[in-house]
């Protein structure tokens, strides 16, 4: 019993201690721990057999770039893990051939391939004295339920510049009898010959047309298609010791930072070049876009006036053809109202233009415009201003008509005569605690004009000289002598959307400065605009 007593006493003391400690630690916030896994672009979660049976262990965490690097250091190559098929092309699957003519592997066979392949190599490199990976029995080192490192990839993509680097490259040989090398990548599977062939003028993204048969396509994900095509080709070039080759590591295409660096470098070289050459696919310079007619086509052309579309200009303004040709360049465009006018979509005309308006030099005025204004009736005519083509007009004739209209668009910003722009405007109607504010009106207008210089979008859409004035002098007829602010704005909270005069002034200046990222004067620095009244 004496023992029991001692034990009990001890237990009581321990509990009291833990209690005090707990209270203390809690008060110091030590009990909350933050857990966050780090992200890497090369993390592959190996769960190949998940397709065949339910997983016993969690998927294995595999860092591809770390292995590529280690192999290089140890004098080994990709072949250590990736076999070559009959044609000498490297396969992407681990230690086996896949696809047509290859045996279907069972789950246990697959398991053995991975376990034997990985562990034997780890053992070997360990024996050679290198830092190595997990061995037999260290299951949890690979099969982690809550991985410390997780995959974090950006989508890889072929933008115009990258595309140019490929089609301009002399390393990729030109197609037979052609100046261009498009056929190296843009082959299309031909049903009759059962082979991938190149058809000039019908090139399209691999997303929509590929070198594979439809059956094979069904079993491949877009990811696999791209990796099969890009990485294999790059690898072949590297093995051939070509002058230049694309990346075979994960990070170069999928790590945000590396992609950013690459894009910056590419942009620099484009700038040095002047401008990026157009794709040699015979795109039209201009297109007359007709509004889609719902229901049976009537004999006479009706409905909304067509839009003259400057195809050449837009080619250089977007990253890839797919931005607009969302179904591929060979497919017909979706001409529905929504496809062209959805302000929330990056792929519609209106949406993309609205995105442009988010640039600081535009946003000062445009951010204040409600979303409904983008598609309001008054704005239709700014695009839909071409004449209806004669029935039966040829494609070329329509393109020529569009060209003419485009050529007539202003090449510079329409401006009010400089003397008609008041140099300063003194705002003092509600001057109370502060002196009137002397606003450098002309300076503001000129700096706005500077921001839209050389912007075809601005030049085209700010067609009249007064259009620019409407940025501040809104909701009033465009005029060089707009009505005073106080003619609409009076007391606060009388009509929603119509602030009181003080708030109207402040909002107009401050919001514009914020949107245009003008740091000075700070919105809270009252005396920068109006001196404090001496009492």
């Amino acid at each position, binding site marked *: 019993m004496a023992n029991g007593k001692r034990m009990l006493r001890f237990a009581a003391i321990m509990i009291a201690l833990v209690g005090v400690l707990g209270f203390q630690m809690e008060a110091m916030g030590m009990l909350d721990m933050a857990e966050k896994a780090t992200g890497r672009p090369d993390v592959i979660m190996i769960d190949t057999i998940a397709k065949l049976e339910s997983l016993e262990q969690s998927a294995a965490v595999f860092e591809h770039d770390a292995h590529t690097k280690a192999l290089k250091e140890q004098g080994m190559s990709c072949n250590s893990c990736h076999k070559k098929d009959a044609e000498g092309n490297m396969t992407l699957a681990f230690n086996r051939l896949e696809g047509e003519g290859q045996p279907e592997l069972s789950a246990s066979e697959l398991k053995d391939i991975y376990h034997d392949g990985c562990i034997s190599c780890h053992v070997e490199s360990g024996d050679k004295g290198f830092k190595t990976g997990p061995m037999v029995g260290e299951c949890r080192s690979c099969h982690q339920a809550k991985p410390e490192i997780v995959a974090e990839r950006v989508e890889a993509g072929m933008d115009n510049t990258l595309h140019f680097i490929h089609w301009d490259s002399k390393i990729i040989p030109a197609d037979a009898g052609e100046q261009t090398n498009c056929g190296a990548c843009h082959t299309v599977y031909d049903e009759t010959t059962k082979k991938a062939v190149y058809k000039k003028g019908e090139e399209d993204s691999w997303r929509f047309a590929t070198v594979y048969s439809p059956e094979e396509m069904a079993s491949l994900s877009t990811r696999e298609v791209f990796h099969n095509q890009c990485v294999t080709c790059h690898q072949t070039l590297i093995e051939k010791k070509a002058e230049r080759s694309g990346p075979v590591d994960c990070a170069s295409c999928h790590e945000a930072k590396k992609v950013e660096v690459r894009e910056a470098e590419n942009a620099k070289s484009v700038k040095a070049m002047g401008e990026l050459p157009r794709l040699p696919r015979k795109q039209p310079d201009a297109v007359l876009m007709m509004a889609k007619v719902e229901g049976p086509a009537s004999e006479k052309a009706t409905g909304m006036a067509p839009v003259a579309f400057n195809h050449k200009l837009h080619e250089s303004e977007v990253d890839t053809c797919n931005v607009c040709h969302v179904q591929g360049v060979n497919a017909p465009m979706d001409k529905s109202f929504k496809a062209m006018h959805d302000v929330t979509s990056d792929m519609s005309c209106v949406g993309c233009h609205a995105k442009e308006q988010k640039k600081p030099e535009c946003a000062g005025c445009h951010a204040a415009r409600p979303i409904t204004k983008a598609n309001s009736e008054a704005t239709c005519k700014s695009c839909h201003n071409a004449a209806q083509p004669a029935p039966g007009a040829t494609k070329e004739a329509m393109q020529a008509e569009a060209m003419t209209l485009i050529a007539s668009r202003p090449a510079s910003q329409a401006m009010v005569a400089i003397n008609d722009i008041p140099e300063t405007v003194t705002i003092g109607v509600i001057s109370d605690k502060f002196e009137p504010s002397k606003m450098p009106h002309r300076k503001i207008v000129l700096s706005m004009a500077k921001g839209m210089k050389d912007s075809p979008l601005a030049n085209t859409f700010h067609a009249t000289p007064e259009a620019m004035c409407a940025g501040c002098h809104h909701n009033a007829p465009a005029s060089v002598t707009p009505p005073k602010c106080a003619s609409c704005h009076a007391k606060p909270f009388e009509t*929603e959307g119509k602030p009181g005069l003080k*708030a109207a002034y402040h*909002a107009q200046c401050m919001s514009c400065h914020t949107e245009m990222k003008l740091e000075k004067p700070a919105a809270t620095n009252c005396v920068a605009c109006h001196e404090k009244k001496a009492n």
Partner: protein
Amino acid sequence: MLRRTFLGLLGAAGASVALPTSAKAGGKSFGPHPDTQAVLFDATRCIGCRKCELACNEVNQLPAPDKKFDDLTVLDTKRRTDEKTYTVVNKFQGKTSPVFVKKQCNHCLEPACASACFVKAFKKEPNGAVSYDASVCVGCRYCMVACPFEIPAYEYDEPLTPRVMKCTLCAPRLAEGKLPGCVERCPKEALTFGPRDEIIKIARARIAAYPDRYVDHVYGEREMGGTSWMYISGEPFSEIGMREDLGTASAPELTAGALAAVPIVVGMWPVLLGGIYAVSKRKDKIANDERVAAVKDALTRAGEEAEKKLHEQLSKAEVANQRRIEVEVKKAVEEALAPKEEEAETGEEES
């Protein structure tokens, strides 16, 4: 609760989302008073100039702060309302630029402070203000525990007459037909004042007009049963120091269950306990009766047995043995009675 779930719940409330909230009890529902005024704070408009703080300080004749109101370095530390400050503006880092959020009493439709106060010092006035009456306040600070927005502040340095301090919605100014001090002074109309149903419509209209500028949620429309001070923002509210896990149940609803149990206890406990008492008492009585009966029984049985024995003995034995037998019988009777009597003695009780 996750924000998504929370919004989901809001969505589940369906068509009533756009309507003013109403608390429910026993099939009855209570909308806010038709005269309820409200203020909308638009975080996208606030520039963090602290003019509202200045106005509040002047209007309510609060003590001067340590740092002047035009000193914007104050914004670098997160603050809350205290006994000398009815409203504070805090700065948060938004996605691109700093975001400022004004904090003050939200003037709940179903105020937690009023529900918590045991002297009814807080009251939701018809004009929307939640008023405080210092003349009855005991200073228990339960209102501060109850307030989900952490608003009421206490005069900890007052030894004998501490008050709870909080925004009054400038009720005295409203009575004169003026705007609340902060609303009037705001240079950007980041604060909009008006009848609550109008204010909700305005908030919704702004979100609809600039969908990518705002988060599609009017904070305070339903939070804690709805408030008279509502917020719209371009940043998720949880990023700008406002809790999104408060739920929509109002304070009186939260305590309704516990309060409802009280009268039931009063009604049924005496019955239950009286019943238990009566049963235990009766059990005692029965046990007692049984004991008495047992004693009697034992007595008679012992007597009978003794007599029988006596007869047997008598018939068999000689007269000489008779005296010895008598003594033995007497002993046996005594033995049989002794323990029972002892028990019976302790059986009695006081009542």
